């Protein structure tokens, strides 16, 4: 077993670009000749400034206005065998970081130390040529990604089998559907065996079944003791595959720690009011002169508004409303819809109490509690409705007022993948299972497996 050996060490990595200059500079020979005569060194200096940043104050204060920093003093350490997620909004610097670590582009300042061979998957199917057959493209793509021919020979059958395009392996790739191309390309990439693997959001290819295959393969890779840096926008896959995540924002490291926490920071930082919606001004609040919806919140058991919910924990959906006219009865309910637009369930206030009235005018708060160990991983959107008549026009009907994300953690003390596998289905209820042994006609009651025993 390894001592804590460092696999990747980034030290104040920074990268800047000059804005707009590139497009100005790609002129013709004639124009540049003219410019040369006018001011001999100006054009040359301009061109050099595209890649030479000696004039830039590396303290990053008072930077010239034409400079944009893609990465600013990024530092972190990754040990051998760690799987680290890298998240951040578009433009935060994630792809730039991977490109620097892959040696595709050099840093402007700072250093990175790398132990071992790096394979990067920044795009699936790099080098694929439509006129070549699948077989030929496997070899081409494989060598581009850094494999040796002997290695590809050895794994060829495995690769083709994983991709599922065996029948067409000797047909030119231009005859493949886009899904087949993606699967073949990913199959090659999935069989890379470098010490360090850098992956940039390439899991978003193929159908759900293939995506599942990819995630499983990624899990195998991480269990083989390879260091993996995984850039993604898909939070459930981040929390499932990576125990640790680094959050990049505007070129710098915003957070670095256990995935669950960092994902929380991300969701909160980025879409701050997603789990809470308020209408302080009653006149603008949804509703009519009977009732107005003032606020909606997603809460944990201890009352905090939260964007990210642990799959085991109950979730409270709170609705705050103002009743303006005395009502004999008021039906309050909401729809829950997932990322794919599938309705997961609806919940009615009357489900747990028959009190649907009368309501005196005033401010009310109703909270519905969704039990833990029931919802599936992913983002859920809540759409509330309030009405007094069925059918008829509702007083309040809003779509996607609040949303939250359900995540399953990878901490070793709770949900190990063995005992809580990722599953299909719109909900993931943890049911009670009972097992008895019935041999020789004797009814011997065996211990029942209780969910609480597995999940601490």
């Amino acid at each position, binding site marked *: 077993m390894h001592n804590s*050996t460092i696999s990747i*060490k980034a030290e104040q990595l920074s990268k800047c670009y000059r804005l707009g200059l590139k497009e100005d500079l790609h002129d*013709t*020979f004639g124009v540049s000749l003219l410019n040369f005569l006018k001011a001999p060194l100006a054009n040359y200096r301009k061109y050099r400034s595209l890649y030479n940043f000696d004039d830039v104050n590396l303290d990053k204060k008072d930077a010239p206005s034409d400079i944009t920093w893609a990465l600013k003093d990024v530092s972190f350490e990754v040990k051998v065998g760690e799987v680290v997620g890298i998240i951040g909004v578009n433009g935060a610097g994630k792809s730039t970081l991977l490109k620097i670590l892959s040696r595709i582009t050099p840093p402007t300042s700072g250093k*990175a130390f790398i132990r071992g061979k790096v394979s990067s998957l920044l*795009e699936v199917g790099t080098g694929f040529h439509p006129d070549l057959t699948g077989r*030929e493209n496997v070899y081409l793509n494989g060598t581009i990604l850094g494999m040796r021919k002997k290695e590809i020979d050895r794994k060829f059958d495995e690769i083709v089998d994983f991709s599922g395009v065996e029948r067409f392996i000797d047909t030119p790739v231009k005859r493949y559907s886009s899904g087949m191309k993606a699967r073949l390309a990913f199959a090659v990439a999935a069989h890379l065996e470098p010490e360090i693997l850098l992956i940039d959001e390439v899991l978003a290819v193929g159908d759900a079944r293939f995506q599942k295959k990819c995630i499983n393969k990624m899990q195998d890779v991480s269990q083989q003791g390879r260091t993996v840096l995984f850039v993604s926008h898909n939070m459930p896959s981040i929390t499932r595959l990576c125990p640790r995540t680094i959050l990049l924002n505007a070129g710098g490291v915003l957070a670095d720690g256990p995935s669950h926490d960092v994902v929380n920071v991300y969701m909160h930082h980025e879409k701050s009011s997603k789990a809470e919606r308020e209408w302080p001004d009653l006149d603008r609040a949804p509703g009519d002169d009977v009732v107005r919806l003032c606020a909606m919140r997603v809460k944990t058991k201890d009352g905090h508004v939260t964007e990210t919910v642990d799959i085991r924990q109950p979730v409270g959906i709170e609705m705050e409303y103002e009743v303006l006219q005395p009502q004999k009865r008021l039906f309050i309910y909401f729809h829950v819809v997932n990322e794919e637009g599938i309705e997961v369930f609806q919940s009615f206030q009357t489900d747990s109490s028959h009190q649907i009235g009368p309501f005196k005018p005033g401010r009310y708060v109703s909270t519905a509690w969704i039990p833990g160990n029931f919802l599936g991983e992913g983002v859920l959107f809540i759409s509330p409705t309030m009405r007094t008549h069925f059918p008829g026009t509702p007083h309040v009907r809003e779509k996607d007022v609040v949303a939250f994300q359900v995540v399953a953690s990878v901490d070793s003390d709770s949900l190990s993948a063995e005992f809580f596998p990722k599953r299909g289905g719109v909900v993931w209820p943890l049911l009670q299972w009972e097992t008895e042994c019935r041999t020789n006609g004797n009814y011997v009651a065996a211990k029942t497996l209780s969910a609480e025993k597995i999940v601490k």
Partner: protein
Amino acid sequence: MMTSSLEPLTDRSQPNAVPMSVIEAKPPWHLIDVKELKEYRDLFFFLVWRDFKVLYAQTILGFSWALINPLIQIVMFTIIFGNIANVSTDGIPYVLFSSVAIIPWTYMAASMTQSSQSLIQGQTMLGKVYFPRLLFPLTPILSRTVDFGISIVILFCVMVYFGVSPTWNLVLFPFFVLYMMAIPCGIGLWLSSLAIRFRDVKQAMPFFIQMLMYTAPIVYSASSIPEHYRILYSLNPIVGVIEGFRACVLGLPMPWMYIWPGMLMAALLLISGAFYFKRMERVVVDVI
């Protein structure tokens, strides 16, 4: 993953033994990383092979295009320069005269043109994956030699027709092939890195190639050049290649005075091209 207290702190079998490589803004400088090129030799092979296969894919005539191209030029030049203009060729039949020159020239023109465009054409790959950038301009240099090899058939047929018997000069044939490859290699290294700066390298190429053709004794004989200009003339490395091939194949006395200056220039082009390419190599992705 705990280590027992008995394990040595520096165990050679541990990954600590693998040295760390550094990525930094201004790395130590070296001309060619031979070790890296050796690691990527399988990729080089596949890139060359892809280049060759794809060129003739889906054509009816397939690889025979490698023959037709030079053949048409030979016919055209024989008619225009041989018969109509009646250019002097020191007594050698024009067809023979031009075949020996056109076949290597076709190779040089094609590989030079492709090599100069290599970085621009490969820019998506440049931004998505790392492999030694040198492979980009070098690939056409090698893939077009296959075309060259095929078109040697023409040369062979013409030689047989005119009853040219092989001489010991043929021993130098491989040397001239290497010399022939070095020229588009050097020019390609320069042009490919310049092309990412000046997009009109692409526009200028056909014109440049045309011009270049007339600077070498392909359609005329080198003896037409006045005596006192000959040294200057031979600074053009292509002159050396063409004259060398002619002497080689036709058994003429080897005109070393045309060859030495050119070789010097070719070496200079190659080395300076490699320097410039190496300088631009790291920042290519940011500048393209």
